[in-house]
């Protein structure tokens, strides 16, 4: 008797998980707009600056001491590849923002190396975003944003800033690197918000 198996399909049917205009890849492509910064965990620091000028700072040891999450998510790059069932380890932004007093509506994320990206603050809350420091059970490699990157999988992956070093909370929206270069200000893959005007 033959056995027909559909194989492992993760959460839901694969075609239901692929946003419009995307294809599935099993690789993890590396896209960089500049040289890869090599930041040791001894010098790594993460800051959140509020709209009132208050600064909150975490060292690598501080980050490691916080409760960790293990998000299992699909990721979608604006260059049209999607990767299903990726496994990360990191700290939820809900934890980092817990004691930060702010009425800001926007966030501007900055990286070692000068990269920036913007998003509404609410997209960093309620279990939607993490500071990720491991991928597939290993420390995050520098070419993928190590020692730590932002992970915001519900938006195109350029929002998940590699080599993250800080977040500024702002009253007014301030477009980041790709947003000022012609990409969409928000970047929802399910609405195919790739470029300005989409």
């Amino acid at each position: 008797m033959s056995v027909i198996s559909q194989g492992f399909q993760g959460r839901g049917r694969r075609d239901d998980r692929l946003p419009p205009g995307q294809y599935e890849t099993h690789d993890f492509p590396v896209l960089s707009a500049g040289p890869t910064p090599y930041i040791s965990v001894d010098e790594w620091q993460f800051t959140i600056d509020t709209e009132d000028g208050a600064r909150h700072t975490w060292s690598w040891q501080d980050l490691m001491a916080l409760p960790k999450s293990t998000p299992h998510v699909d990721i979608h790059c604006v260059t049209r590849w999607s990767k299903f069932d990726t496994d990360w380890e990191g700290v939820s932004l809900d934890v980092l923002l817990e004691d930060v007093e702010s009425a800001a509506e926007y966030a501007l994320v900055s990286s070692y190396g000068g990269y920036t990206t913007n998003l509404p603050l609410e997209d960093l809350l309620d279990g939607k975003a993490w500071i990720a420091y491991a991928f597939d059970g290993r420390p995050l490699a520098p070419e993928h944003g190590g020692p730590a990157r932002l992970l915001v999988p519900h938006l195109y992956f350029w929002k998940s800033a590699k080599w993250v070093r800080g977040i500024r909370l702002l009253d007014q929206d301030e477009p980041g690197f790709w947003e000022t270069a012609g990409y969409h200000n928000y970047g929802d893959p399910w609405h195919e918000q790739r470029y300005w005007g989409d």
Partner: protein
Amino acid sequence: MHVDGNAAAGLLTQVFARDMTGAHGTCGSCGHNGPLAEAVVYGEAAGTVFRCPTCDNVLMTLVEAPGRILARLAGLRWLAVPI
């Protein structure tokens, strides 16, 4: 991985409708002046990024969208195009 500005000659020709590898630009950050052909180009990104060979400042980005190319030249103090 990066290449030099010659590798982006075809894309530059699409934008400026002429050979641009001999055009000279001045970096808005450090003031370095040189041909676009000597820019440090990162092409395996969401767009093509031209960086200053001296200070790494982003001189120019070109994003290829359906039916149009979006050019941002904010990192250049000026661009001299031979005629």
